[in-house]
């Protein structure tokens, strides 16, 4: 039980350190920006470890972080195989195809008012199809390997991306549009010089949402049929074997990969939309 008390203390201490950091003048530096979430994360991990030990939670329900770390370290080859199957082959290829397709579609939709009125509501409808229903169908259509996972990802990222891009392309102020009108700019001129730059913050919003959807989509799709490799395969198989440490090791991989993916997109966003008020701080 003493661990539980420790856990509470660690939590308070972590929060205190972070508030010191966040409110210090150094808060704007890159190091602190990185340190604060890390400290938070480490605090959570320590509290987790202490609670699991203190409350004697069964390892088949929630393994302690130390066990997960050990499993992670000893399973790196398997984790890597699973990662490349699910993330590189499935999620990434689907993400790229889905986002590119959505961008092209958004331009078409933006050009034609008719398409916008007709396609967007239908698109919203399709976007609401739950993945647990579409995944089995797509596995049936595209086979067990990564192709069906990529297809699931395409379906998942397409509409968030489309909706965001379309909204972004209309996100110009009346005066900015009027200016283009006075130049009698052609459609593509006002597209590249006004609408696209103005839409970038929205496009990146879509790209960021899609990063998390892509990975989760690829993993979930593997629950409905897969070769004997992949993060989703490993997770479901390991749950059945009560190898919860392996499950969490895969979850850790998913979290690391997903956050890194998100981070990369966010970084690109920062360099391309530095002018936007939300990025100027």
């Amino acid at each position, binding site marked *: 039980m003493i661990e539980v008390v420790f856990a509470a203390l660690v939590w308070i201490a972590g929060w205190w350190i972070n508030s010191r950091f966040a409110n210090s003048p150094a808060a704007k530096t890159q190091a602190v920006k990185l340190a604060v979430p890390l400290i938070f994360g480490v605090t959570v991990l320590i509290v987790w470890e202490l609670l699991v030990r203190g409350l004697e939670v069964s390892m088949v*329900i929630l393994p302690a972080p130390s066990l997960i770390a050990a499993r992670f370290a000893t399973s790196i080859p398997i984790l890597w195989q699973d990662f490349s199957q699910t993330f590189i082959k499935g999620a990434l290829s689907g993400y790229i195809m889905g986002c590119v397709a959505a961008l092209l579609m958004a331009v078409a939709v933006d050009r034609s008012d008719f398409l916008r009125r007709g396609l967007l509501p239908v698109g919203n409808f399709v976007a609401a199809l739950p993945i647990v229903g579409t995944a089995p169908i797509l596995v049936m259509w595209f086979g*067990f390997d990564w192709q069906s996972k990529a297809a699931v990802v395409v379906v998942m990222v397409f509409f968030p991306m489309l909706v965001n891009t379309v909204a972004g392309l209309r996100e110009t102020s009346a005066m900015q549009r009027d200016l283009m009108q006075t130049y009698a700019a052609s459609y593509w001129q006002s597209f590249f010089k006004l609408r696209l730059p103005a839409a970038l913050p929205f496009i990146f919003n879509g790209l960021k949402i899609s990063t998390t959807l892509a990975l989760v989509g690829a993993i979930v799709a593997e629950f409905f049929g897969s070769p004997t490799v992949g993060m989703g395969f490993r997770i479901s198989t390991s749950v059945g074997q009560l190898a919860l440490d392996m499950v969490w090791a895969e979850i850790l991989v998913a979290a690391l990969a997903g956050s890194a993916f998100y981070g990369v997109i966010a970084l690109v966003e920062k360099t391309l939309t530095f002018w936007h008020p939300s990025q100027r701080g």
Partner: protein
Amino acid sequence: ADDVKLQLKWVTQAQFAGYYVALDKGFYEEEDLNVTILPGGPDIAPTQVIAGGGADVTVEWMPAALAAREKGLPLVNIAQPFKSSGMMLTCWKDTGISEPADLANRTLGVWFFGNEFPFMSWMSKLGISTEGKGEMGVEVLKQGFNVDPLLQRQADCISTMTYNEYWQVIDAGVSPDELVTFKYEDQGVATLEDGLYVLEENLSDEAFTDKMERFVRASMKGWKYAESNPDEAAEIVLDNDASGAQTEMHQKRMMSEVAKLTAGSNGALDVADYERTVETLLTGGSAPVITKTPEGAWTHAITDAALK
């Protein structure tokens, strides 16, 4: 009345008819039990549920139960209503498969989620690698929960149960002589299915063992009733299916097939079956399910008391 929560291994279907019959016919009530049956499904590991305290007793396959035991979750078999295994591999005949040796270099659909162990043992017994196609290797697919991979010819063979998936293939319009089946029983790699398992620590609690005795007694009464009244049993299962997905035809047929598997059991675990299962599992190839002979994984205490 004493509360008992029973976790099933799969969705509500005639595979679990005995329990539903016992519930519906009031056999549990007669034993002063208040039983709640929790249906399972593809995303439910019964072992995990019982570990978390979500159930008192669970229907589980022995390989998974023994694997859990090695993982540190001490499950104990208290009763074994299913005498024989219903698992088999179903293949297209036109692929040229006629005996187990023909399986090499094929694509096979296999259930995972803790149900892959008998298959792995079989393959290792056949000397076939599961790492990919080759002279002595097969490509293994993690089969979803339906028979589409076979129907769509994405796999040459898939795992089926004698009482369920096999008939789904037939219902899809395939005639039995288009198919070749390999029953695990016939291949000598059968493992025990659908036993009742509880946590070992609970067995030292007398109130609990008493409860389990009554539970097993009533459940076996239910099973025997179901065996002799298959159609009524199937109706009872249908009444209890909240998803509304099961059909009468399918459940009646399943009940009659399940009856064949429960036929030889009075509920008590046959130690010979147990030992055969353990032996099969210990030869599980490169990644054996269990690495050493389990101790204390079963008890006759409950059945002895219940069935006297």
